[in-house]
């Protein structure tokens, strides 16, 4: 019964977004039914007229009437199939997408970092909107064949209720068999799911460009081919087994259909004809109706199965549409400018975790300062960034911006204070200008901002040489004239983002990892020495942080050392050790 619920939920979205489509569907269904019924009535009349030796003109009049019925019903049907469903498909997609986008934006980071949520989310989107389109199509077809069968069935009942009983018995056997057959196939698909997924995965892998090099240069292709063959063998042998089981069921069904539905119907009708209880015209019309009914009924049963399957898939999708985020975006006061940032005894633990990721963090930042956060991987540096950006709420302690607690402030306002270059930053298939400004370019002032930022990171010349300048598309995703940049150039574009922004605090996470030495030096100089902005730099390479105002060394969630480079070196602690190790790499080993 979940099938019904899911289908109704999908239907409600269709009704909301594209009511025209829903109404046309109703008309389409009615038209199809009218056509099927008219055909049966026509047969009866035609044969009777022929037998009675009527004037050919009378027959032609009936035929003409039928042709008019065809013209009218085809209109509704074609209009629906060729126009309405094609056009409103896109409208539905558009509106559905819009709704999904606004949904996603409101989901808190905490959910995204939760693997349980993210898995479901991913599955939901993979099935996506297209599946609900299919569900609607299938629903319409199901209703068409179902209502047609009911209408024709009604005609048959009127002329002969016993016949309906015969047909229904056969149909019930049919339903029973179909159910059993489906159960068997469902079990097969469950049993073979891991193998089938492997099968499709290997298929995809061979055809993707990114694996092509390794496929040729290593033995991986043999391994994958072997696994494919193994998976195929398992899938096929289990298929054969299931098919054999199903074979007997279907044989049983065929015997029932052949003897009960066909044989008994013909025998029964033939007897009545022979006895003179019914006329030849009624006999023929009823046989036609029986064939039609049987076909329609079978179709509707098949669609029912498809609907059940589809509704299974859209479960996740519906879950997503109706998901309520746990943590709402905070509304609060907006604070202008920036003078100081204080973290007081900050502690944080991920909701599902046992251990604290950060503990007793004390941290101060004044306008114009350049501070660094260093430490081994997994120490908590990135978590700290997320807390500063208000993606998470602290578990203990507090963050104070210009002496106001984050708790009082508006989330959007908080985030507008920062410009971030993440370690795994994204470059978008938009223009260079949009990739730098991270919003639409509205006027010349915006363009200037972009050029200035590009100049600072040493990309101005290259971009100016492009025919469309900052309006060049990045990546060749859509456009053969899109600009393709090297890894280092892309990193520079990302850094340009912070310089082009209007934020007060820059956070740079490993900003020069892909750059060659000379570029790295230039950017480092630029960042540390020339810019007047407040900066938080997270770096592995300690050469980057030597000139900062203050360095915080975070290890296993705590600040273990704090001070300037000179102070930390004289401490001879972890920082000094790390520095010494890196230094030794540039010295000859004996």
């Amino acid at each position, binding site marked *: 019964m979940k099938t019904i619920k899911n289908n109704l939920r999908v239907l409600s979205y269709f009704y909301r977004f594209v009511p025209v489509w829903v109404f046309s569907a109703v008309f389409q269904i009615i038209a199809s039914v009218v056509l099927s019924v008219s055909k049966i009535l026509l047969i009866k009349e035609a044969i009777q007229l022929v037998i009675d030796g009527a004037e050919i003109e009378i027959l032609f009049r009936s035929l003409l009437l039928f042709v008019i019925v065809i013209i009218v019903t085809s209109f509704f049907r074609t209009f629906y199939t060729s126009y309405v469903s094609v056009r409103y498909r896109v409208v539905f997609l558009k509106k559905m997408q819009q709704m999904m986008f606004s949904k996603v934006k409101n989901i808190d980071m905490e959910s995204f970092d939760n693997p349980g949520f993210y898995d479901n989310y991913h599955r939901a989107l993979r099935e996506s909107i297209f599946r609900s389109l299919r569900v609607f199509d299938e629903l319409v077809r199901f209703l068409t064949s179902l209502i047609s069968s009911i209408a024709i069935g009604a005609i048959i009942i009127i002329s002969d209720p016993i016949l309906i009983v015969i047909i229904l018995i056969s149909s019930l056997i049919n339903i029973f068999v179909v159910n059993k057959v489906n159960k068997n196939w469902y079990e097969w698909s469950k049993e073979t799911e*891991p193998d089938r997924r492997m099968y499709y995965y290997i298929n995809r892998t*061979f055809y993707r*460009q990114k694996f092509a090099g390794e496929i040729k240069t290593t033995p991986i292709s043999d391994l994958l081919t072997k696994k494919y063959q193994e998976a195929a063998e398992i899938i096929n042998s289990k298929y054969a087994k299931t098919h054999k089981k199903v074979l007997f069921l279907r044989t049983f069904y065929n015997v029932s259909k052949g003897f009960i539905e066909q044989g008994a119907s013909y025998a029964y009708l033939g007897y009545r004809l022979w006895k003179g209880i019914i006329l030849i015209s009624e006999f023929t019309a009823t046989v036609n109706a029986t064939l039609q009914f049987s076909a329609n009924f079978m179709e509707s049963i098949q669609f029912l199965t498809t609907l059940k399957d589809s509704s299974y898939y859209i479960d996740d999708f519906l879950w997503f549409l109706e998901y309520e985020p746990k943590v709402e975006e905070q509304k609060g006061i907006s604070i202008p400018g920036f003078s100081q940032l204080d973290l007081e005894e900050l502690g944080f633990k991920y909701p599902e975790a046992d251990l604290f990721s950060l503990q007793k963090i004390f941290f101060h930042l004044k306008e114009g300062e350049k501070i660094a956060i260093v430490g081994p991987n997994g120490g908590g540096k990135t978590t700290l960034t997320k807390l500063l950006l208000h993606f998470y709420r602290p578990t203990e302690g507090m963050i104070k911006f210009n002496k106001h607690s984050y708790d009082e402030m508006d989330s959007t306002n908080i985030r507008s204070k920062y410009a971030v270059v993440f370690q795994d930053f994204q470059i978008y298939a938009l223009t260079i200008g949009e990739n730098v400004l991270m919003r639409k370019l509205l006027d010349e002032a915006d363009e200037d901002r972009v050029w200035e930022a590009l100049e600072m990171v040493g990309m101005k010349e290259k971009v100016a040489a492009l025919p469309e300048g900052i309006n060049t598309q990045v990546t060749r995703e859509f456009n053969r004239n899109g600009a393709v940049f090297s890894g280092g150039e892309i990193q520079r574009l990302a850094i340009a983002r912070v310089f082009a922004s209007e934020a007060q605090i820059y956070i740079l996470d490993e900003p020069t990892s892909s750059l060659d030495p000379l570029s790295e030096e230039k950017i480092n100089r630029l960042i540390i020495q020339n810019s007047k902005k407040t900066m938080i730099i997270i770096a592995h390479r300690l050469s980057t942080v030597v000139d900062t105002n203050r360095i915080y060394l975070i290890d296993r969630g705590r600040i273990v050392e704090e001070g300037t480079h000179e102070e930390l070196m004289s401490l001879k602690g972890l920082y000094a050790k790390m520095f010494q190790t890196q230094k030794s*790499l*540039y010295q*000859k080993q004996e």
Partner: protein
Amino acid sequence: MKYAILSLRLLLKKYPYDLLIQAITIIISTVVTIIPIYMIDQIVRMVQDNRPIEEMMGMILLIALVFVAANIIGIFVAYYDAYIERNFKAECSILFFKKLDQIDYDFHESPKFLNDYTRALEDGTERIYRSAIGVIAIVRIVIQSLSVFVIIFTMHYMAVVYAIGIGIIYLFLRFQIGHLNYKAMSLQRPFMRQRGYVNRTFFIKDSMADLKTTQIEEILLENNAKANDEIVKVVDDLIMKKTIISYIGDILIASIYPITLGVLAYVTIEDIEIASFASLTVAATTLSTLVSQFVSAIGDLQNHTVECRIPFEVLNMKSKIEGIAFQDVMGDFSSLEVQNASFSYDKEHLVLDKINLHINKGEKIAIVGSNGAGKTTLVKLLLRLYDTTDGDIYINNQNYKQTTAKSLREKVGAVFQNVEVYAVSIAENILFRKPQNQSDIDLIHQALQFSGLDEYINSLEEGINTQVTREFNRTGAIFSGGQMQRLAIARGFAQNYQLFILDEPSSALDPLSEAQVYQNMMALGREKTIIFISHRLTTTVNADRIYLFEQGQIIEAGNHQELMALNGVYKKMFQSQASKYLGANDEDN
């Protein structure tokens, strides 16, 4: 159409007895089509001739038996049909896998491949199968139709002529529609890609941070809305035409029935054969269904065969490097010589310009230079993914161009910057095959130790048998960037390459890990020859020789001391990286 025939030939080559199976299916479907028509005819005739009721029941029973028998045979035949389908598709896929392995690498880097071929190949086997059976489906429908035609024809030729005439017109209309659909698709495709892009980008985790901290979403949403509007426009432009054509077509097809009925009635009134008329009312329905099915089948076949072009093209591709047997590499690696090698992808811009370098067994060589200087291209040449456009490369004094690529790659291997992992076990990701015995397992553990991954792997519940990626289950191992790089190094170790190339092997590693990896590499001693490619000059200080690349040329070569003494680009680069550590004075100790 030629691809349809090719597909059929491919299918029959592998499963010749499929012909028999399809023939049986055709016969059965024809019989099943005729039965209702025949049944009614006989019943009415018997009633009119006042035959005894037992005779009628006997005949009905007989026909029902034939019907059931035909269907049962059909079911069993369908079993073999399904068997063939599954196995054919699997074998076809494997055919493609093997072929892709043997196509020259430059094919994979062409934009054509990226756009069209990936998509086409994914569906390839399905399309080929559908094309093959599509041909058979058409033959089946034709035979079924002929049988019905013959029956109706004996009554009056007009009905058949009309049906065939309608069929032809409908076919023509269908082609028009197909053409319009194709046009609509091509016009829509760029916008659909734009829409798909926004969709993908909006929903991935990596975009979340940007979406929340910047106004990038505005642009993305606007682009999406624009794309959707353009798609609607295309639909509106072309759809009216399509609808009218479909409307006419539907009416024509539906008209077959009443017209046939009319003709038959006319004939019957003149010449009283009620029985035939009665049965032919069913025939008329069957007729219009078959005509419509025939036209659909042609449309479907066209659809499928169009998509077969690319898969067949791929199957028939010729390669110059891959899969061609030249000479194998003689003996273990002893030397590599690059002589005046130049290379360009597009014959215009030289990526490598007269490169000369030599490497002897056991040496540790560093290749440095800024991004885009040609270093990665050099690696591809050393792996013989491409051939030099000018000049030559020699391994053990044998020219690369006379050496079988596969044998080369057993000796020369690379660890790339962008590491790919596969959804197989950790052991298989390292060994590239299933571990067969204890020495395999020992090798894997050694490799893990070497790359520093052993601690992490041992902490996993299933150890080296853990699945990598969450592709198939929720407990698969997911590696960070740094761990992936270590995995790649473990791989290289386990594959036992004699000449080992590391392309930016430690960009994602923190400096301490990087130092570890580097030390381990150097500790491999004189047995392994290693080429480090990096823009990080930590690898150069202890290297036997350094080659400094700039814009495709080697501008400085020698060891660290020699290059520092040159007072050139290398010295500048080294100082910019090292000065913060070593201070301005003691860089060259």
